[in-house]
């Protein structure tokens, strides 16, 4: 399945079924067994060619940030709350898709002509914003939208510039895309490919996944992460740089990378000539934080694709970095997922 198709599916946290169904179709064809757990996580297992070569857990999350309808205002507009971390300043005059029927909508705000000086100086909050679905009044809007309906950001997929793409939900359909590519091969070690739910609202699916997986040796998280490589940002605050390779994290808010695993990944990238960089900022977190202690200790590391304007309908990443994420995960698995561990006794 192509990244262009994956990013166009809607899967706001807790509502991942369209993404899951598409991934399951492919996973069922190339894995030995698949299962969907009670939370909606998809686990696909593929045995290795050499028994006793260990078991590796790979994770990417299916969900994306979005909104949830709270109800209809007297004017027939949809009030909402954010699902996951969304900056309200990003949402003004953006297109959205409401509910299962995919009703088109737009997020409105007062035109600049009508704003007071004070209003112009104050950023709008989610409470100041609403979704306009073009309903003529409250009653007709209520026919179409119920409280609890999911609202997804709309953002088409476009390849542009020098090897860049723009789309919604690059975080983390890039990871899903690469997991689907990896599972076409059979490695020496056993691999469980896990597509998790509800990462964006607090890593809720991944711990549940870890407790269903027997004796994994390590877990690799394939993620989209923040890139802040913009003109005015000082070098030490750029986090990652789009186009500079797959980003390895030494530490974020939920994990400190396993030292041996991180060393092995760096060595692997260097040996194979795969472009890589560090995520040079301690911020954000991902499913690694939830799996590392969920069922006893597990060595974890994150391989991320830098995304500019992440958590927006127009996130941007470099296809070279997407390839580098794939190449590094693949090379590590091809080499038997070997790493040094202090583990003993």
């Amino acid at each position, binding site marked *: 399945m192509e990244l262009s198709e994956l990013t166009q599916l809607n899967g706001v946290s807790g509502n991942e079924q369209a993404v899951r169904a598409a991934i399951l179709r492919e996973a069922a064809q190339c894995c030995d067994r698949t299962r969907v757990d009670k939370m909606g996580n998809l686990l696909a297992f593929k045995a290795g060619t050499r028994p006793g070569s260990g078991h590796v857990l790979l994770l990417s999350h299916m969900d994306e940030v979005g909104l949830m309808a709270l109800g209809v205002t007297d004017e027939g507009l949809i009030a909402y709350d954010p699902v996951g971390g969304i900056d309200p300043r990003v949402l003004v005059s953006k297109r959205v898709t409401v509910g299962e029927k995919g009703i088109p909508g737009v997020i409105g705000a007062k035109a600049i002509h009508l704003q007071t000086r004070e209003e112009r100086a104050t950023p709008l909050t989610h409470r100041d914003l609403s979704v306009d679905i073009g309903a003529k009044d409250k009653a007709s809007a209520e026919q179409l939208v119920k409280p609890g309906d999911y609202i997804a950001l709309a953002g088409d997929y476009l390849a542009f510039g020098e090897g860049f793409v723009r789309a919604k939900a690059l975080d983390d359909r890039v990871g899903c895309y690469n997991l689907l590519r990896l599972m076409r091969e059979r490695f020496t070690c056993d691999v469980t490919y896990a597509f998790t739910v509800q990462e964006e609202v607090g890593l809720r699916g991944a711990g549940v996944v870890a407790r269903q997986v027997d004796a994994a040796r*390590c877990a690799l998280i394939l993620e989209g992460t923040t890139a802040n490589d913009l003109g005015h940002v000082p*070098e*030490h*605050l750029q986090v990652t740089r789009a186009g500079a390779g797959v980003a390895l994290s*030494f*530490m974020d808010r*939920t*994990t*400190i*990378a*396993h*030292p041996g695993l*991180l060393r092995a990944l760096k060595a692997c990238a260097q040996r194979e000539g795969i472009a890589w960089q*560090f995520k*040079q*900022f*301690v911020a954000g977190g991902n499913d690694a934080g939830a799996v*590392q*202690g*969920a*069922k*006893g*200790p*597990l*060595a974890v590391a994150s391989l991320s694709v830098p995304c500019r304007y992440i958590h927006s309908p127009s996130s941007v990443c470099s296809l070279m970095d997407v390839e580098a994420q794939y190449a590094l995960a693949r090379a590590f698995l091809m080499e038997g997922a070997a790493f040094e*561990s*202090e*583990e*003993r*006794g």
Partner: protein
Amino acid sequence: MKELLEKVLAAYGPSGHEDKVRAVIEGLIRPYVDELRTDALGNLIARKHGAGKRIMLAAHMDQIGFIVTDVDKHGFLRVHNVGGIYRRNSLNRRVVFENGMSGVVSCEVEGDSPTDTTMLKLFIDIGAADRADALSQVALGDMAVYAPECTHLMNRCVCAPAMDNRAGCALLIGALQAVTNCPNEVVAVFTSQEEVGLRGARAAAYDVDPDVGIALDVTLVGDTPKGERLPMKIGGGIAIKVMDSSVICAGEVVAALEAAAEDAGAAHQREILFGGGTDAGAIHQTRSGVPSGALSIPSRYVHSACEVISLDDLEAGVKTLAAFLMRG
């Protein structure tokens, strides 16, 4: 006790990089335990076999520090905190890296406000001439800690960085050395990554699957001029935790620890802490729940380079824990 404490205080060990502390502790406890292993998160797990209850003891090995996130063209290292670093405690302090390289933590002057609490304006100066020179000694992702220096004050008070939680490690080592023919199954875990969110203890507790959990850590005090409004004081005995922001201790565990302190003739006080947490916070939520408590060594100036404790409190802690483990 003094020599034991000094040995564990001297080792380098920020969160996630506890190898050196672990090696020192391994050497100190090996003759006193039946099994010893290290898990994938770097927890050191020691067992003393016994037929009774399985008691998990947790003392975290890691200390707070700084992680290098960038090196500028002049050779200054940009950093982020690892655990609860206070900016005001760090300015113009000496730090060391795992390879022994020293540096000084300082701060941008231009546009700085003393009330700023973020780490974004801090840097470490290792005397490098430029970026390449700095990178010959230190890599991105390397961690630095306050330079170890143990000083003895009056009345058996000891001052050092990393007292949080090498004092707890020393307490646990002391108890393991003191207890023989224990009726209970003792699983002593020297945990990793406590300072960044009780991560080692959470993982280890799942594996250990204990009947009871006891954390050994330091706690804050309210005994300094216009200090925190807290009942604990140094020299007042080992603190038996009632609650902190991570755990409300099981009543029966608090009672058993108090009874053990009485049996042992050890001075003790109660700990009620509204901020801060410890490994018991992770252990008590393991699997279907574990009755848990904690013994805390009262400490002044926690999370600074001059954490002060009393050896008397530490020794009272060893006696209390040893007596607790011997109870049926």
